Structure formats: structure tokens, C-alpha cells
């Protein structure tokens, strides 16, 4: 079922047009990766879908309703979005950051209920941060910090989570840690994930669907096997590569630009 979609979406910054007429729809309970060269508009697309940026034309639909007609907190109860490398004061304890995720469920003066507390517990448990609850953000490793942000977004109880480069700046161990967490949340809680990825091999390993963007347009859209081919990689990134299929997953070996 398509419950999240954008239709004829165009957007930009000031006079600069970045996204050109993009139409996409997302099925429930899947992991989708958006790939493409720098400046191709991946972040811009994610921001429009998460209403951080107002499109100049077109619409984003959630369960058949246009999100421009919904309130900020109503959207936030269904859509969680984490921008690329978010920033916070280093002295916030993990459990406080996670508790901020309950904000869309609260009125200005309402207090923290038992349900809120249980949800925060669950989010910290799901991300394996129970032991770190009293640690401060600045004391965490990069992977733990990224997990703390994901826990915050999970405490929102969204149906869909939009993530902009959740693994950038992480070493390979922490990259896997974050992606395996997303995979686990996807299978165990049915969380729909749309993420921007730079690593094509990790993107193909962890997502059922790859969307490739170039110059503000979607140029390829399909399963990993269909998108990750030597010709496609050359068309999109201008890099020569060899494709290796092993144990059911597909990987590219890059041979250079010359």
C-alpha cells in the first residue's frame, strides 16, 4: 500500500531550482535508499518530504492527505526526520534527548505521562542505549550518538523515518551498527525507512529499493539488482566499476574515473 507519496514535486532555494517535478510513492514497511552525486538534490528531496522545506510546486501526501494541510505536530506524529549530522549541546543526557521525541504528542503544559516514559524506555532499549541513558551526548562515540538521535526519532512513534546520510563520518563498524538497527526496526516494528546513502554497497545490502538522483531528477528507481549495474554507476557517478554478486547481495568495485 502506498501511504507516503510526493507528486510533481519541485523545490529550490530562492531562485535556484533544485528538484524538478519529482513523483514518487513509498510502500509501507520497506527500506528505501536515495543515492546520487553531491548536489543532486537528495537532501532537498528528503527535506521536502519531511516538510522542512516548502516545495515551490507539487505536494507531499501522507495517507492520502496533503501534508501542507496538516499541523506541524500532526505530521511529526507520523513522520520522523533526522537531518544530516544534527547538532546539540554536548551536555544533554541521552535520556533527555530521547524524551524530546515525545514533543509532538504533548500540549504546551501537559506533563510527562507513564506512556511517554515507557515509550522513551522502549526507544532506548530498541537502540541499545539503556546503559548509556545518563551519559551526555558529547561523551558518546559517533555511532552511539547517531543511535541516540535515532532513539529520539523513534520516541516520536513515527510510521516513517527519513534519514539524511545516517552513516556518514562513521567507521565501518558503526555504519553496520546503525544500518542493522534500522533493519531490525524495519522487520520488528514495521518502520518504513527512507534514507540518503553515499555508500552504494551498503545501500544495496540494506534496502529493498534504490532511487538514484541526478541534477534534481530521479533517473533510476528499482531493486538493488536493477539499479546497481556497471553502466548505471558510470552514468550517475562517472566512475568505472565491476559488479560482484556474492551470497545474494550485490556489490560494486570501483575502478577509477579515467
Amino acid at each position, binding site marked *: 500500500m502506498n501511504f507516503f507519496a510526493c507528486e510533481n514535486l519541485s523545490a529550490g532555494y530562492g531562485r535556484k531550482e533544485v528538484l524538478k517535478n519529482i513523483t514518487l510513492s513509498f510502500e509501507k514497511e520497506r527500506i528505501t535508499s536515495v543515492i546520487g552525486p553531491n548536489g543532486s538534490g537528495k537532501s532537498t528531496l528528503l527535506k521536502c518530504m*519531511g516538510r522542512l522545506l516548502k516545495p515551490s510546486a507539487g505536494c507531499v501526501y501522507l495517507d492520502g492527505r496533503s501534508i501542507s494541510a496538516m499541523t506541524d505536530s*500532526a505530521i511529526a506524529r507520523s513522520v520522523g526526520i533526522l537531518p544530516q549530522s544534527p547538532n546539540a549541546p554536548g*551536555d544533554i543526557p541521552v535520556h533527555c534527548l530521547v524524551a*524530546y521525541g515525545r*514533543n509532538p504528542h504533548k500540549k504546551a503544559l501537559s506533563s510527562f505521562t507513564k506512556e511517554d516514559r515507557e515509550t522513551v524506555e522502549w526507544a532506548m532499549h530498541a537502540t541499545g542505549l539503556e546503559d548509556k541513558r545518563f551519559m551526555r551526548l558529547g561523551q558518546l562515540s559517533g555511532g552511539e550518538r547517531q543511535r541516540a538521535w535515532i532513539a529520539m526519532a523513534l520516541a516520536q512513534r513515527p510510521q516513517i523515518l527519513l534519514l539524511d546520510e545516517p552513516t556518514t563520518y562513521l567507521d565501518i563498524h558503526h555504519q553496520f551498527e546503525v544500518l542493522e538497527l534500522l533493519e531490525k526496526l524495519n522487520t520488528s516494528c514495521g518502520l518504513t525507512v527512507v534514507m540518503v546513502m553515499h555508500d552504494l554497497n551498503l545501500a544495496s545490502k540494506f534496502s529493498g529499493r534504490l532511487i538514484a538522483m541526478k541534477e534534481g531528477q530521479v533517473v533510476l528507481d528499482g531493486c538493488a539488482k536493477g539499479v546497481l549495474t556497471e553502466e548505471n554507476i558510470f552514468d550517475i557517478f562517472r566512475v568505472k566499476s565491476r559488479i560482484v554478486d556474492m551470497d545474494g547481495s550485490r556489490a560494486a568495485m570501483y575502478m577509477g574515473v579515467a
Partner: protein
Amino acid sequence: MREFTDSDAKRRLMTGAVGLMLLATGFIVSVITGTVDISLGDMARIFAGVQTDGMYHVLMNIRLPRIITGAFVGVNLALSGAILQAVLKNPLADPGIVGVTAGAGLFAMAVMILLPSLTHLVPPAAFIGALVTSLVIYFLAYEGGAHSLRLILAGVALAAFLGAFMSCFTVLYSDRVQGTVNWMAGSLSGKSWIHVKMILPYTILGLFGAGIGARYLNILMLGDDVARGLGVSVERVKFLLTMLAALLAASAVSVAGLLGFVGLIVPHITRLIIGSDNRFLIPFSAVFGGIIVIFADTAARVVFAPYELPVGVVMAFVGAPFFLYLLSRSSRS
């Protein structure tokens, strides 16, 4: 509920206890020191209502309203600074940044110099000047959203612009400048119960508003995008909180003149002590703001007695070196 680590809770408890002690000490010291010496015994008898001589008048109608006005001025300036530092995500922000100082200064100076017989219009003029200027800065800086850097730049530019008018006044009416000096430096001299009544509603409004706003300030500190993702109507909340900060600072300067450094330094010190969580930073800043102004004003009254310094001068003597110290600390880390 295990919401906080023990060490955090302990530190807050300690800080709160020390704060209340300092507040009480400051209050008592300020009541008993001055040109007329009032002993602790006199003070107790006056508050108990058994002593009603000349000392009663000094305490109840001169010192007490001055102390209370000073405390509220400190509370309002500190709250204003704490709010702005969070909204602008800049620990060096202060009420001057949103034009309160320049706006209030120009309007008050205009009244004092052009209409010297209407000095009772100085507070409302300063108040209006401060609010109008902060609104102008906000809308100059607004472009699809209020970004902190643009707000800060617009604030600096407009302050320089209004400052030029003030310089014109000082040159063209150099004979009348003398009367503005105290106000421009920030002074609590001669404050009475009228001034307490003038500022009290804003202190109450500020404490409520900032108390409710603390949760939103915390989320705004995560960045505009994250805050919007968490369902905060970022632009509306930023506008309301900035205007609350402007209102608080305007009410303070309209009563006490251009008292600087309180709004900058008090939230900053408080943050160093208890951390950046606005649910605690806001109330603690309020208490410390009151304490600092009470102590500074006591010093202003007694250090060069029988002459009185404007309290703003004392704040600058203490505040400016401290500010430089903070700057050197932050540039090192």
C-alpha cells in the same frame, strides 16, 4: 522517577540553596547598609511593625522599593538574555542584540533632551523605543524564517544607525547631556513603589512565559530542522519567545535605564554551573539576575558614599572583565 543523574540533581539542589542564601544575604546587606545605618534589630522591629520612626521611612519607602525594583530588573534582564541565547543558539547573545538597548536609549534620550520638562515620559518612551526597534530588526532579518546570524547582523547594523542619532543629540545639545548620563549608564537611584508596580507585571509574565517556553527552547537548541521534525512550529515559537525577551528587557531598561551585562553574563554563568537545560537554566538565571543586581546596587550606593555610582557602572566594572574571561575560555575550547 529516575529522570536525572544523582550528581546533576545534587548540583542543582546545592546551587538552588546557595542562590537562595545569597538572595537573602544580599537583601539583608542591602537593607542595612547606606548613608543611614540600620541595624539588624531595627530591621526586624520595622518589619514587625513596632518601630515607625524616620528609619521606618528610609527602609520602607526608599531602600525596600529600590531593592525590589533592582531585583526585578535583574530577573527580567537575565530571563531575556537566557531566552535570546537559546533562540539565537549563541551563548554571547544579550538583549542589546535585538535592539532593546539602542531603541530604548534613543527614545529616552530624545525625551530627556528635547522635552526636559516631561521626564515622566522617559519610561514609556524607552519601552516603546525598545519594542519598536526589536520588531524592526526582526522583520529586517526575516526571510523565509528568522535566522540567528541575520538577526544578529541586523541588530548590530540598526544599533549603529540609532547610535548615530544619539551622537547627534550629544553634539547638538551638549549642554543637556549631563542629565542623561545616569540613565544611560543604568541607575536605580530614587526608585519607588511606583517602579515596582511598573515592572512587576512583566516579571510575572516573563517567569510564566519563559517557564512554559523552556521546553521549546531546549528543542530549538537542537537546530531548526530537528525542532520542526519534532513538531515545533519553529517560526511562531521563535517570534513569540524573541518578543517576550524584548518585552522583558524593555520593561527593565524603561525602569532602570541602560543597565548592561546582566542579560549577557548571568545566563552564561548559570549555564557554566548547571548546564544548558533551559528547564533549570531559566529559573536559576532569574534568581541569579536578581542577586547580582541587588549586590551591584548596594556596592553602587556605598563604595563612594556619599556619592552614588550608577549601578550599570558597577556591572560594567565587574562584568566587562568577566566577559573577556568568558571569551578567552570559549575561544580556547
